[in-house]
C-alpha cells in the first residue's frame, strides 16, 4: 500500500523582524563569536513577463485555435514532424505545413504526474502522453483525459485516441488534448 507523505510541505514566508541580536560592544571576544551566528536568510521575490514569440512555429498555434493539428514535412523526403520544426534535421531544407488532424493517433508512451512544477501543482494528477500519428515520423507531447489517473496501466500504450480542442484558445500547446477514441 502506498505510504502517504509523513511531513508537511514547507513553504517560504515568515515573520517580519525588526532589529537582530548583536553584541553591544564589538570586543575581540564578541567579534570572534560572530562566526558562530546562524545565517540570516531573506526572501528575494523575482518576477518577469517575457514577450515570447512562436516565430516560424506560429501557424501551428493558429491551427489549434481553429481545431486543426498541423505538422511539418520535408519537401524532398516526406519526413513528417508532429511537433513543429522549421527545417528538416536531415536535409536542412525548410519544411512545409501539412494537416494531420484526421490521422489515426495512438499512445506511444505516457505517465501520470502526481507531483509537478509549481505552475502545474494544482492540476495533479494529470496524464502526459507522447502521441504517435499514423504516417508521421515523430511524436507530440500532449495531455490525456478520459482515463482514471489512479489506474495507470501499460495497456494504455497503443490505445487509440482522438484530439479535442478547447473552445477558447489560450495559444498554448494545451489548446489540444486527447481522449480515448
Amino acid at each position: 500500500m502506498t505510504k502517504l507523505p509523513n511531513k508537511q510541505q514547507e513553504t517560504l514566508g515568515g515573520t517580519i523582524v525588526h532589529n537582530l541580536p548583536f553584541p553591544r560592544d564589538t570586543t575581540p571576544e564578541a567579534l570572534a563569536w560572530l562566526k558562530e551566528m546562524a545565517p540570516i536568510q531573506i526572501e528575494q521575490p523575482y518576477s518577469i513577463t517575457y514577450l515570447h514569440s512562436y516565430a516560424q512555429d506560429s501557424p501551428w498555434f493558429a491551427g489549434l485555435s481553429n481545431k486543426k493539428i498541423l505538422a511539418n514535412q520535408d519537401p524532398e523526403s516526406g519526413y513528417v514532424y508532429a511537433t513543429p520544426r522549421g527545417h528538416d534535421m536531415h536535409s536542412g531544407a525548410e519544411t512545409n505545413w501539412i494537416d494531420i488532424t484526421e490521422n489515426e493517433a495512438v499512445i506511444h508512451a505516457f505517465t501520470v504526474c502526481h507531483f509537478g512544477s509549481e505552475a502545474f501543482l494544482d492540476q495533479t494528477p494529470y496524464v502526459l502522453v507522447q502521441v504517435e500519428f499514423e504516417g508521421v515520423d515523430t511524436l507530440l507531447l500532449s495531455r490525456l483525459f478520459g482515463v482514471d489517473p489512479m489506474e495507470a496501466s501499460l495497456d494504455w500504450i497503443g490505445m487509440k485516441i482522438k484530439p479535442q480542442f478547447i473552445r477558447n484558445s489560450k495559444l498554448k500547446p494545451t489548446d489540444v488534448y486527447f481522449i480515448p477514441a
Partner: protein
Amino acid sequence: MRPVYAISGGVSKFAKSRPDKNFQAVVKEAYDYAINDLQISFPDFTKIVDGSVASYFSDHFTRQLMAAIMAHDYLGLCPKPSHRVEGGGATGGLCFQEAWKSIASGHMDVVVAYGFETMSHVETWKGNEFIALASDVSFDYPVGGFYSGYYAMMVTRHMKEFGTTVEEMAHVSVKNHINAFHNPYAQKRNRYSIQDVRDAPMVAWPLTRLDICVMSDGAAATILASEEGIQKLEKAGAKIPRPLVKITGIGRGTDAMRMADRPHVDYDTFIKDYATEQEKASSDTMKYYKKLWDHGARYPGVHSFRAGRTAGNMAYKHAGIHNPIEELDFIELHDAYTSSEIQTYEDLGLCRYGEGGPFAASGKAFLPGIDYGLKLPDKPTCSVNPSGGLIACGHPVGATGLMQAVFAIWQLQESIKKHFNDNTLQVKDAQKGAIHSHAGTGTYVSVSILEKE
C-alpha cells in the same frame, strides 16, 4: 595530444541546504580539500595552477549571473584564465572534459575543474519548474513542465517494449542507497528494501520518490595535470600518489531537446551507426536485435539514450576498450532516476538493449561483500555507482559530474578508506573506471575513462 592525469579531488558535504556558506565558500571547501590532499600549501598551489573551468547549471537557482567569476575570484585565481561550461545535468562531466582539453592540447599544465549548485534557495516545486525550463518552452514545458514526468514517459515505453519491471528498477534504488550508507559525503544514507521503494509516494507513474534523486546544495573540484604540471607541483612539495590516474578516454553525444523529435531508425541504421564493436562482432546479438526490430522496436525512440551510446562508443574507442563490462572495474553513472540507470546500462554496452531490467536485478552491478537484503543470481562484475550515485549522494547539478570524477580518482588511488573512513566501498584492485554525466532526457551525455597508469 598529451597525456592528462587526474591527480586530486575534493567534495563538499552534499546537503538539502547549505545556508551557512555562500556558493563561493562551498566551492572552496571542495577546492581546499583537493589541494590539502596534495599536501601543498594554498599559495604554492595558486602559483602553479594555470586556470580553472567552472560548472553550474542554472542562473535561476543562484539568481546571480556570472557566478563562476565570483567563485574563481574567491579561490584566489584571478587573473588566471577561466570559463564556465553549461550543459544541463551533464555540466560537470563536460567541465571535466574541458579541463582535459586544456591540458591535452598543451595550452595548460595544471587546471582545476570545479562545479556547484545551490538548489535550496527556492522551494522544491519552484526548483522543479526551473529544471523543467530545460525543456522546450514552446512545446514541452507548457504541457507538462516536469522532468520526472518526462523520464517516466521514457520508462513506460521501455517497460512496454522490453518487459522491464518496477521491481527491477527498485533494485537500482536499493543498491545505490545501501552503497551510500558507507559514504559520508552522501545526502541520503538509508537502507531500503524493494517494498520500501514501491511504497514510497508516487511522483510520476511508475517512478516513486525513491526512484528519483534529490535536489542538493554542494560543490566538487578536481585537479588535472600534464606530466610537466606534476613535475612543477612535486618540485613545490606536492605529494602525488603513484600509480598515477590517467584520463584515457573522452566521449560525448547529443540528442534532440524534445524527446518527441528523436528518430526511430531501422535495424540496418542501428547496426551501422550505433551498435557497439562487441555487438557487431556477435552473430547471436545481431540475431537478437533483428528479432527486436521484427517485433517493432525502433531506435532510439524515447526508450533509449542515443547520446549515451554515442558518448560510450567514442570513449571506449579512445581508451581501447572492447568489452566494457569485463574491462571496467566500476562506473559512476548518472542515475537521476532508477530507470535512467537501467537505460544507461544498455547505452554503455554493459548489456544489450532490452536487457537492462534483468541486468539491474542480476547482481552484476552490485559491490561484493555488502548485504543488500536481495537474492542476486550473479556475482558482481562491474560495480555501478559504488558511491551511491545521484539517487543517494544528491544531485547539485553542476557539482555532480565532478563528484563522480573525485570518487573515481579515489577508487583508482585506492584511497576510499582514507576519504570515507570506511573501506567498504573500495573496489578491490580497481584498474579502470568510467564516469558518465547526462543532461535532460539524454540531450548531452559525456563519458570519461580513467585508469591507473
